[in-house]
């Protein structure tokens, strides 16, 4: 029972961490290595509005998410657009932005354990003799809503359809009058907001620490590689595979090996099926 409950929670948490990364790559083909930094930054910004300025918690979260969206759009418009199409430069540029954000936060004094966000709902409940705190239930609920919301957005809205069109074939989308640069800006803004949302949902379970940015990036990359770069539904499925594998590892081998699961998943996927479960880079298959 505990494996089922905590496997599901862990999987949804991983999906939340990875969705933004998968969405941005799927649409703009830019691997946003600043993803983990944005996750942490949203936590610190929410904390600043909540604790520093005394704003309402919900309002602090909304402001933080809007700021993350704006940040994502600006990062693309003024930095990443210049290196778009040059894969190595995209990685270096976005990773450098992430480093600057994370180490800038550390330099600015955001270190130690005193930065925390309150849980949305206090208390816990017993399900099948297993204690679950309400914040994890909130994470599961929001995670499911976000996945459904993203699906609806990309299937029933003009912008969403344009994003999908661009993800499928950028040249064809251009011929249909879709502004690919604008769509990439929108994708980056949504991706940054998703990273921020993951941050404000998951960080109340612990503390806001700079190091989380690096861990989240590794996990997001692992999920996206296993799921197939560019496929956000593949990312959701991969999150469940890795999430359950991690919990099984903790139960049967020990917590010590939990992180190894994600790293092994990357290695085995790249060896056996480099395009991932639902990858769009079929040419990778042909190389194996």
């Amino acid at each position, binding site marked *: 029972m*505990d494996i089922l409950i*905590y496997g599901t929670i*862990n999987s949804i948490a991983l999906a939340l961490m990875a969705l933004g990364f998968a969405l941005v790559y799927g649409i703009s083909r830019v691997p946003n290595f600043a993803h983990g930094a944005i996750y942490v930054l949203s936590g610190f910004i929410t904390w600043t509005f909540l604790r520093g300025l005394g704003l309402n918690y919900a309002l602090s979260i909304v402001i933080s998410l809007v700021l993350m969206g704006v940040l994502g759009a600006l990062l693309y418009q003024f930095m990443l657009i210049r290196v778009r199409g040059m894969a190595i430069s995209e990685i270096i540029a976005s990773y450098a932005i992430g480093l600057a954000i994370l180490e800038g936060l*550390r330099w600015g004094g955001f*270190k*130690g*354990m*005193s930065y*925390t966000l*309150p*849980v949305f709902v206090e*208390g*816990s409940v017993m399900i099948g003799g*297993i*204690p*679950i*705190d309400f*914040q*994890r239930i909130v994470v599961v609920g929001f995670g499911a809503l976000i996945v459904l919301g993203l699906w609806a957005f990309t299937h029933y809205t003009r912008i969403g359809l344009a994003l999908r069109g661009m993800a499928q074939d950028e040249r064809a989308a251009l011929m249909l009058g879709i502004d690919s640069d604008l769509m990439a800006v929108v994708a980056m803004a949504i991706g940054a907001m998703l990273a921020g949302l993951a941050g404000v949902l998951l960080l109340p*379970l*612990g*503390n806001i*620490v700079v*190091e*989380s940015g690096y*861990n989240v990036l590794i996990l997001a990359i692992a999920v996206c590689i296993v799921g197939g770069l560019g496929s956000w539904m593949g990312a959701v499925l991969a999150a469940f595979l890795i999430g359950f594998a991690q*919990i099984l590892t*903790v*139960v049967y081998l*020990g*917590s*010590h090996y*939990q*992180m190894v699961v994600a790293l092994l998943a990357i290695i085995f996927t790249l060896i056996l099926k480099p395009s991932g479960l639902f990858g769009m880079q079929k040419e990778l298959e042909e190389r194996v």
Partner: protein
Amino acid sequence: MKMRGFGILAVLLAAAFLVLPGTQALAEEPITLGCPLSTAYLYGWDADRAIRLAVDEINAAGGVNVGGVKRPFKVEVMDTRDLEPGVPVSEALLAVEKLILEKKADFLVGGPVRSEAALAAMSLLSKHKKVSIFTTGFLSPQFHAMVAKDYDKFKYCFRIHGEAVQLVKEIMACFQEIKDKYGLDKVFIMVQDVAHARGGGEVLGKVATGKGWQVLGTEIYPTGTTDFSMGLIKAKKAGAQILNIWMDMPESSILLKQWYDMKVPALPFGSTLAAAEQPGFWKATEGKGEYTLCNVVNAGNAPSDATPWTMKFYDAYAKKWGVEPEGLGSSSSYMAVYVLKDAIERAGSLDSEKVLAELEKTDLMGVYGRIRFDPKNHQVIPSFDPKEGAVGSIIQWQDGKRVVVFPKSIAKGEIQLPPWMKK
């Protein structure tokens, strides 16, 4: 008129010598204390602050009398980064070597902090014949085993704070009190994947089993772990009544938050639990860390009346830094500077051989009791009584405060159980 001017000048000069005794010391060449510390982490920054406090006090009082010449201390801190996850030991060794070769440190006080790095640094310190007092975080029993085994090589190294074996003794004595009072006898061990924690957890498991405790399991977490829920469920399912935690990573406060949220019916007992040592722990866990027990290694790192110097140090630290002493390296780092001053003054020289000989003869009533080193292994001599040796401290978080609950000789309160553990 001219004579009157000379007279005023003479009076002013005389006053300067009489009123400002420290001025002369400050004019002399300073004695450089090299401090290799992991400054981004608690055990680094609290040691840094404590060393600077002691140095400021000593310099303000005139400095160190070296063979009749008063010389001030000067502090050179270098970041070893050894407490940061993934940083190799070589970084710490580089910092130690830079302090010796570039900063021309006369003595080393402080770290490296992580046991792996400190043990590796011992050979380096011996090579340079630099007297070094380890003051924070370095809990591995291997230290004094190495000094005892190869005295001639490692004689320059001293450790002025408690170590893992003594910690286990204190914890077991405290466990016995809990067993007698509340009838708890099942323990689950949670350790961080670092040398002192793995070693400490293993030793505690063996000792506890030998003393009739049921050790239900050990869970090892990599540095930087942020989710402990499955480990807590394991402990709960196994029927644990005490969670024995060996972690110095700040993320351990998350463990206590999750323990509270899941209402795990086991008393959290930190052997080294950096997060819970700090006054900021209450705020960081939003009060969810209440009832957490924690060994802060030496008295003075939490308020108590161990000796007349304890609260004097505690208050001076709080006044200078605007925060109470935060972690296990505070009082020991402070005392190390005074102990070194005492040894230098008795030696009348900065010569390593002479100073180490005097350090071995140290007998000083300090912040956490009587400070003496075992001359064979250079470990500070511990005791449960501050009149006899360096006394430890186990605190419990009660109503937002760190209350010393062990040993009895300095306790300020009794151990309490969380409401969901009361029958």
